[in-house]
């Protein structure tokens, strides 16, 4: 989809090239993350793909076509673009912001409206509520979502993302990353993703291109990168805690099916059933769901002593946090550590209960790997 050959950039007035003889091939539907310390040339490389910077030497082929032969305006209209600062237009409503490219492409009004609303749903912003708001009225995470929606609205096959989740807090970032991965699973865009955060790179990528001082050091899948770093620099970048980093690579639903655990109780289960399961369970906790299989809460031993009632629903207390089934094991670990318990309940997008994983499950994964 994107092929980069001998790409070089020397900025005017400088002798050392910012990017030197870079070769890279990105397959259709892949997320390629450019990672490296600041000043390593990763952003410059990205900006040469949509010709925000003109290359000094080398070629970029988009679907086999030399991109210098494509009008830069047309080229950019067909490549989604997201930057860390988002760059939302403060004087336009959310709707108008997202409709930027359709308006540039002079789409009919109906088509634009349909696509904008679709994209707003996709990134989890209710058009009814948000479309007429201005960017200043949005939180950082919401603005990032608008930025992504704006880049994707015209359905570009290629997207360039420069640290798109760099400016939000860690919890929001994890959530946005997971949402993005879910969207990507459906959309299968070819994405060039720039970050300096190796954890994010491992989590988001199909392939990782490690860059340093303008040169490409290694281009590999995350798991190969972790097991076989090309040199000292990559090894240092990846760090010593490679086992923990593997947790970024595996999604909760992947291990959920291997875990054999007792079924949850419905809220109208008898007190005796609760007592029995409490004794049998390795969790020392009973998961309670309602009739629609939505997570209702959990019951610990203390709940049974303190509260009175007939059925499970009377005893349970709400859980403070859950993970979705497309979260990484690392996300699950974070939640466990933050909540101070050895397990976390897994729900899907519609908050249906999917199962529970424990600290022990995570340990098994790490052990198997090493």
């Amino acid at each position: 989809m994107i092929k980069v050959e001998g790409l070089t950039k020397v900025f005017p007035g400088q002798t050392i090239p910012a990017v030197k003889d870079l070769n890279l091939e990105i397959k259709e539907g892949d997320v390629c993350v450019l990672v490296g310390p600041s000043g390593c040339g990763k952003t410059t490389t990205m900006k040469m793909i949509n010709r925000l910077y003109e290359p000094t030497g080398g070629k970029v082929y988009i679907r086999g076509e030399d991109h210098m032969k494509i009008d830069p305006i047309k080229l950019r209209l067909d490549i989604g673009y997201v930057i860390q600062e988002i760059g939302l237009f403060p004087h336009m409503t959310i709707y108008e912001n997202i409709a930027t490219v359709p308006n540039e492409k002079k789409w009919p009004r109906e088509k634009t409206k349909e696509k904008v609303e679709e994209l707003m749903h996709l990134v989890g912003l209710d058009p009814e509520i948000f479309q007429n708001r201005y960017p200043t009225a949005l939180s950082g995470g919401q603005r990032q979502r608008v930025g992504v929606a704006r880049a994707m609205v015209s359905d570009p096959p290629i997207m360039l993302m420069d640290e798109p989740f760099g400016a939000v807090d860690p919890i929001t970032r994890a959530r946005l990353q997971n949402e993005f991965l879910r969207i990507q699973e459906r959309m299968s865009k070819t994405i060039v993703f720039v970050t300096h955060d190796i954890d994010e790179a491992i989590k988001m990528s199909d392939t990782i291109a490690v860059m340093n001082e303008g040169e490409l050091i290694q281009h590999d899948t995350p798991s190969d990168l972790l097991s076989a770093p090309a040199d000292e620099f990559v090894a240092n970048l990846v760090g010593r805690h490679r086992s923990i980093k593997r947790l970024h690579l595996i999604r909760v639903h992947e291990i959920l099916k291997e875990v054999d655990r007792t079924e949850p109780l419905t809220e109208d289960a008898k007190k005796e059933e609760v007592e029995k399961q409490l004794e049998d369970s390795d969790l020392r906790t009973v998961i309670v769901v309602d009739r629609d299989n939505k997570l209702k809460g959990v019951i610990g031993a203390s709940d049974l002593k303190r509260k009175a009632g007939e059925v499970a629903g009377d005893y349970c207390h709400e859980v403070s946090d859950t993970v979705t089934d497309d979260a990484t094991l690392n996300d699950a670990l974070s939640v466990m550590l933050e909540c101070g318990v050895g397990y976390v309940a897994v729900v899907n997008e519609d908050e249906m209960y999917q199962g529970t994983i424990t600290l022990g499950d995570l340990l098994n994964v790490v052990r198997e790997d090493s």
Partner: protein
Amino acid sequence: MFRTLWVWIGIPLIMIGIVAAMIIYSVNNPTDSIVERMLTYERVFRVIRQHASLLLISMTGATIVGVLGGIMLSRPSLYRAGRVVETIVNIGQTVPSIAILALFYTILGMGFRVAVFALFLYSILPILRNTFAGIDGVDYSIIEAARGMGMHPLRILTKIELPIAFPIIVAGFRTAIVINVGAATLATFIGGGGLGDLIVTGLAVRREMIILNGAALAALSAILLDYLIGKAEERVVKWS
């Protein structure tokens, strides 16, 4: 609905009414023959008309030149020049308007046209500076996002830069118009007419009533224009 009427018609009418009442009273109750000669409806309307012409012509020119100049200087190729011009403009702004007028009298002579030209040049300054500063102040990430999405430079200027800079440009325009209303009272010194006729004549013959009428009209114009432009801007700019 009622609020809109009140803001756009009610308040301006009250302002105009107060000054109009003062003029009517003064015209009908002159304290002596000099006041009677100077304060006639005919003369008051004439100086208002002259003042409005001074203002309108010079501000129209200054707005066109100031905004276009500010846009040109904000283009990357002229950006360095823009910085220099900004400094010059800031210095130019510190020159009193009477000095500008005196300068143009020695270079170009006298009369309405010279007064208009001096006012025009003087009013360009805040408009040009604010247009440049407004566009220059647009966050770079916004421009980069627009370029990255494939917007044409001209579209970026008209759809992104100018709208975002608009409140600052309007602020420059307001400054210019308020300065202009005041400075236009000086036109009378070189025979350019306007409300200054009343003020300076009043001073020359020491008739406070004449001074007061001229000054009140000048103050009213400045306050009313500033008020209306401010309200219009509020209506247009909903996002900040």
